[in-house]
């Protein structure tokens, strides 16, 4: 009886730790579907896997976990400082462009950078929503050298953000979703709040 009393809390603690460890894995999901053609592609990448593999890649523009993007920063432009300034700026719309064939909206909402594009021109109309949590944006721009994005740091930051749809592309033929959650086999990001719609 005494053994059970001692062992039970240990077993419960171990089981709890294991359950927490099992559920703490975060996944990047990509889902491309074309209902007209009955085509579906699903990719589930554990973020811990991406975090270990990306620093090892030395190919093209991606080296040491950093993506070199050419001359992104001019002499007097510091991307990191711009992101820092945007982080402390009040929430609201930064850019709104409305044209005959497209609408573009860039805003800060609920601690996230939101980019919304509506392509009204052409026969294949598209809606593109991009949502980047600020911590991820800052991690991405954390390199002193403004010509590179720190992908490794961004992935680490993604592990700490909540469930979020990062990219949603909807056209007549295809839908593309890229999102983060803790499910290893999620079918769709149904439970995740959709990016803010175009306000006008």
């Amino acid at each position, binding site marked *: 009886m005494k053994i059970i009393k001692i062992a039970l809390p240990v077993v419960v603690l171990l089981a709890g730790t294991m359950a927490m460890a099992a559920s703490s894995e975060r996944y990047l999901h990509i889902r491309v579907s074309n209902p007209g053609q009955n085509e579906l592609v*699903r990719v589930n990448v554990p973020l811990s896997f991406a975090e270990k593999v990306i620093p090892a890649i030395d190919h093209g523009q991606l080296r040491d976990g950093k993506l070199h993007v050419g001359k992104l920063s001019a002499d007097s432009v510091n991307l990191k400082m711009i992101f820092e300034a945007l982080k402390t700026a009040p929430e609201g719309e930064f850019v709104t462009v409305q044209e005959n064939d497209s609408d573009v909206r860039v805003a800060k909402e609920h601690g996230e950078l939101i980019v919304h594009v509506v392509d009204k021109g052409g026969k294949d109309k598209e809606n593109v929503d991009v949502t980047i949590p600020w911590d991820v944006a800052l991690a991405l721009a954390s390199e002193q050298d403004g010509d590179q994005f720190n992908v490794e740091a961004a992935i680490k930051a993604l592990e700490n953000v909540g469930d979020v749809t990062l990219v949603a592309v909807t056209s007549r033929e295809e839908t593309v979703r890229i999102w983060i959650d803790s499910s290893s086999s999620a079918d769709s990001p149904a439970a995740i709040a959709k990016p803010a719609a175009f306000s006008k």
Partner: protein
Amino acid sequence: MFILAKVGIGIMGTVVAGGAMLCSEGFMQVKVHEKQADGTNFSIVVPAALVPMTLHFVPNRKLADASAKLRPYMPVIDAAIPALEDCPDGVLVEVTDPGEHVLIAKRGGSVVVDVNDGDDVVHVAVPLRAAHSAIREIAAANNKDSF
């Protein structure tokens, strides 16, 4: 009689230890089913540890080309396979279209590839640790002396 028993136990011990060593890295499985009437059906299950062991005896010149092609990717492979081993089981990639279904998943220390198309059903399961050993063996081929 007593000596015979000792020898028997020794042989049995060796067989059991050898078997355990061979099975230590799991089993590689390849299953192919051709859907046409006279199609081939076969299933092979091989101890995965045999693959790197066998590669060790392949002449280097036979592996030189593969080795040269593999070597630039070794840092990524060395990072990816142990990282994948640490990941929980689950579907990594799934492609579905009207004529084909492809599934790549991680299950119990193995990468499993299932393909089901109009002609064939193919199932391949490769233990990650053995795959890593085999790839390292091939990549190292250029560094070893030729047989």
